[in-house]
């Protein structure tokens, strides 16, 4: 990680803790281009301790790109990423994890052929004993993994079974439980409930609420405005890589949120198009 602007800011991080509501992670005018595809542009976002920031938007709006910048998987190509007020550039997800930022990715989750407990602790394995006899703390890791999975309502007979033998939702739960376990300060969830049943979705939402109670900053990406409105403190709606809406809970209603997510003005245009295709009167189509 390259930390720009050393000196006074660095000292500030150690000497006196930043003011209570200061963002842990902040994006200022951040953007990301993949070659000549500009996936994200000029986005501001603040992740504050004890608050849930919901990121909403269409497919391809740039939500995953946004969180991959925060989690260290991609580097931003414009703007700034600040952790505790200090501009950083993550070289790898390891660096973000070391700062207590844990992520559940939409597309990257687990290694199918590896046992459940090895997946759970992958990259953050615990060891015991001293070198050269330092070895994985297998019993301890299995115990922890089992406990964390049980508390999500996933009861597995055999933690040695390859993750690939679990159902898609169970696998997702392993990834979520892992992030909850390792996310010390910031928890990022990219559409965590997409593959989950009602019960597990409820558990995930409870987790998000619990993480907020513990003072973590949470970034929650979802397509479900109801889920978002249940737990969110702040809502950012992305459209074609830019922020369309950024509002605190007090400033929007569920209806407005749904309207924005559904594309708002676009929907009206869509109604017109559909009307032309079907040759019906616009007024006959259901209201957005």
């Amino acid at each position, binding site marked *: 990680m390259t930390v720009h602007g050393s000196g006074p800011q660095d000292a500030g991080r150690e000497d006196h803790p930043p003011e209570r509501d200061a963002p842990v992670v902040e994006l200022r005018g951040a953007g990301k281009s993949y070659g000549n595809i500009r996936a994200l542009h000029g986005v501001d976002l603040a992740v504050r301790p004890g608050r849930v920031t919901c990121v909403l938007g269409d497919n391809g709006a740039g939500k995953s790109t946004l969180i991959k910048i925060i*989690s260290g*998987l991609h580097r931003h190509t414009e703007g700034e990423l600040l952790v505790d007020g200090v501009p950083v550039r993550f070289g*790898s*997800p*390891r660096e973000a*994890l070391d700062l207590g930022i844990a*992520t559940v*990715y939409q597309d*990257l*989750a*687990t*290694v*199918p*052929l*590896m046992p459940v407990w*090895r997946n759970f*602790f*992958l*990259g*953050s*394995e615990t*060891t015991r004993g001293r070198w050269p006899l*330092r*070895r*994985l703390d*297998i019993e301890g890791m*299995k*115990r922890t993994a*089992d*406990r*964390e999975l*049980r*508390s999500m*309502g996933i*009861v*597995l*007979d*055999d*933690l*040695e*079974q*390859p993750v*690939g*033998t*679990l*159902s898609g939702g169970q696998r997702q739960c392993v990834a979520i439980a*892992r992030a909850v376990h390792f996310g010390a300060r910031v928890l990022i969830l990219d559409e965590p409930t997409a593959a989950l049943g009602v019960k597990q979705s409820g558990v995930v939402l409870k987790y998000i609420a619990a993480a907020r109670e513990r003072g973590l900053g949470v970034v929650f990406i979802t397509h479900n405005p109801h889920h978002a409105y249940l737990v969110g403190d702040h809502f950012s709606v992305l459209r074609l890589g830019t922020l369309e809406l950024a509002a605190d809970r007090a400033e929007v209603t569920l209806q407005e949120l749904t309207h924005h997510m559904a594309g708002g003005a676009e929907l009206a245009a869509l109604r017109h198009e559909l009307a032309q295709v079907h040759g019906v009167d616009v007024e006959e189509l259901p209201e957005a």
Partner: protein
Amino acid sequence: MNRATAPAASASPPAPPAGRTDGRGTRRSPVRRLLARPEVGALIAAIGVYLFFFAVAPSFRTAGALSTVLYQASVMGIMALPVALLMIGGEFDLSAGVAVTTSALTAAVLSFQFTVNVWTGVAVALVVSLAVGAFNGWLLIRTGLPSFLVTLGSFLILQGANLAVTKIFTDNVASDSIADMDGFGQARKVFASEFTVGGVDFKITIVYWLVLAAAATWLLLRTRFGNWIFAVGGDQDSARAVGVPVDRTKVVLFMGVGAGAWFVGMHLLFSFDTVQSGEGVGNEFLYIIAAVIGGCLLTGGYGSAIGPVIGAFIFGMVNQGIVYANWNPDWFKAFLGVMLLVAALVNLWVRRTATRR
């Protein structure tokens, strides 16, 4: 092992569901679990091959024959170990065969040309071998090309350099003898001595082979690095996303192959006192075959260190058994091919079983 049946007193989650399991018999049967172990298929095959030659070739039954078989297996098996780890890590090294010769030539030519103690040559050869491995890994990471291509390139480079450089220095296809140079006797003791058990001579490489296999097993199953090997071979993007240093893991694995090539190269050099510069071509496939017969998945992410030990042992048995049975040795390759295909099919079946829901 099985937390569900153990009284989970230590586990005190916020709200653990009452039921221990959901009662759908998700537990895998012990037999299926055993069969899902990577080396089981190879073990069954090894016993079969042993019994077969035991039956058809009387001279195969002697302790002397066992010693020969084990020696054959060890020389190949020492290289098969790092090649297997690399394969579990999702990559190939086609330069592994000629890299052995490169290492031996480096030590031989350097010691002879500069008239230095052979240990100097041995040390430089180690550095060169590790550097070749690191170069392979670095090139793979920088270019993103498949390791098949990258190491095919280094295979050709090393093969050509082995021949050409040797010719420059010796005007010959073999290196000069280093038998009467300082340290030769000592190095021979370390790399190529023998010991006697019950009146039968065994080569020291057998001991190294088994010790290295034990170390590799420890590495794979009991260390963080071992966990990372499985992860980078299984799904490297997911591994990177949870903080596994993917690039470093791969480079180290390639350097491990370099270290193996060095060790075997030194053994070959000090068993005799010269090296043929054209040797080693084709051996890379034998290493890969030993790993595959031993249950390592060609596509990475699955395998063991015991598997390639058994694979190499099968190789040694077939190689020698055919001789003891007085058959035409040309059958060896055909036999090996059959073994490989059978192993590949068993692997396929194992993987399906292991990931079946």
